[in-house]
């Protein structure tokens, strides 16, 4: 696991069992601990805040139903993030309309980032949206969620070696595309 994202939030076992039994307050404690991480992961995959939040909310419905079957409470975070990543990828596949990527957003009256920061964010966003959802999921799970290659492989249904190979290529590609920043 990488950096500060490796911090587990210490959800007690009885909180998990209470949540699985339908205790909304117990589930809310889990939501509070992990919702934002799941949203960050989904946002990198889909590029849209509303879609990311929608996927995470749908994931919570799935999470609650399956919570009782979670065998290793220590793997709760990885388990939740996996469900969220799968949900947002399924959501992208189900979309019937192609999303138009607005690189320049007309944003009258609201606060703006300084031009340099804004350009950097837009460059990264543009580069990410040129990738497939699976590639964005690879990058997000490694660099945002902090998963190791075997965990990523389990989620995406590919081998750990394939994960490493694809990640290496993706990193090289993004370094090249973002090199002018």
């Amino acid at each position, binding site marked *: 696991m990488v950096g500060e994202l490796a911090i587990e939030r210490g959800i007690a076992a009885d909180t998990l069992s209470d949540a699985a039994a339908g205790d909304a307050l117990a589930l809310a404690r889990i939501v509070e601990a992990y919702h934002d991480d799941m949203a960050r*992961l989904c946002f990198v995959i889909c590029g*849209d805040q509303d879609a990311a939040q929608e996927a995470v909310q749908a994931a919570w419905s799935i999470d609650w139903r399956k919570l009782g079957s979670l065998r290793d409470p220590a793997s709760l975070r990885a388990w939740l993030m996996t469900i969220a990543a799968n949900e947002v990828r399924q959501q992208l596949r189900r979309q019937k309309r192609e999303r138009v990527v607005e690189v320049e957003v007309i944003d009258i009256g609201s606060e703006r980032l300084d031009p340099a920061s804004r350009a*950097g964010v837009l460059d990264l966003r543009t580069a990410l949206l040129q990738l497939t959802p699976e590639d964005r999921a690879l990058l997000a799970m490694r660099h*945002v969620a902090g998963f190791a290659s075997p965990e990523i492989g389990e989620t995406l249904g590919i081998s750990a070696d394939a994960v490493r190979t694809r990640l290496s290529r993706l990193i090289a590609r993004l370094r090249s595309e973002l090199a002018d920043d």
Partner: protein
Amino acid sequence: MTDPTYDPVLASRLRAYAEGGVRTINVLEIAEGAIADRRARRSARPALTLLAAAFLVVGAAVAALVVGSSRVPQPLTGSVVLGYVDHGQRSAWRVDLPAGTATALVRLRVGTAVSPDGGHTAWVETHPGRSDEVHIGDTISRQDVVVQAGGIVWATWDPTTEIGPCYGCVNATFTWSPDGRWVAWASCAHPSTCAFVVSATDGSSRRVLGPAFPATQLDHQAYLLWRPDDRLLVHLPGLGFQEADSDGQHLRAVGRLPGDSPDGRWIIVVDSDLTITGLDGTPRSRVTLGGEQVTDVAWAPDSSMLAVSLSSSDDPGATRAGNLGLLDLDGNYARADLLADAASGTATWSPDSSRLFVVDRPVFEGGAIVAAEGAIVARDGRLIESFRDASIGVWSADGGHLAVAGPASHRVSILDADGSNRMEIGLPTAARVDQLVWLR
């Protein structure tokens, strides 16, 4: 040894970028929604779309301010469509009743608008170097048709900041016919060369109206509106009022301007008195204003009565004491029993003209309502019900229910027409809802 699968610089940038997916949430609502959603899926038929976010129906408990009623509650069915400003653009959702299931219709699109019947949304897709496209979406099937805009779609200015075009402002980009069959926009090949375009909402017809005008005239000397009788009235610089068929065909000089009332028979004249006159100027009904200023008017749908928002101050910028007057065609006048200590807002009549929703005590910041109370008032001025956090209210087509949204609560409340049996539904957005329509 360097890990080829991890780039710390890229990781830092991705994490910063990922913050774009985070927003303020209500964890308990999400938890309760997840539990309710799974339980509903086990029993509901047909299966809900996975794209719909399930939101908790907070409860059918009557709010403390709502007086209880022994009336048998009317069955609640149907849907409401809501719109809001979203990062300078607009988004729209459909909320199905009574479950409160929400479906995203349009997210972060330029100028998104909802038709008066709730059946369609419209928004603009921009393409660098070429003409805009107008998308008209069906709020049930979520399929949309694409209509060539004929140029750059131009919105009116933000009325509070006078900065524009304001694609995030409500009703600034599209104008609809009351039945939702037609939609119009201003399309500009150049800011000095704009024209109105009228399209059928099923995409079957598209027509460009009359001579061009500069974008600076939009909403000043260039505007259009559909009358209740389906006539299309167009005002153009240098030409004044023209009229056309509802589809924009046969643009012609208007023979006689209809009156202000929905049936076109009555005109409002405001000076020291408020007078309702016939089209020939003959007074029908009058009330002396006594120094109060008329800030807004709303005709009952049957044209039998006029609701008038009144202010005691002649300073348009002042927070002022306000009230509501009700004048009928027979000269009967009533004052609404509101506890207003700020300017009253627009009144919205029920379809049967028996009562109206009014925004009482709105508090404005930056031109937007940030706090308000709502009230249901009878034709005789009697207060039927009042409730907190209600800045926008719409009646169902049968008049049996009122949907209200407030600036602060992130909920839509559904009430019976007498103010009883209030149900609150959590919204899929923390944004302030500024457009709310019942789906007919």
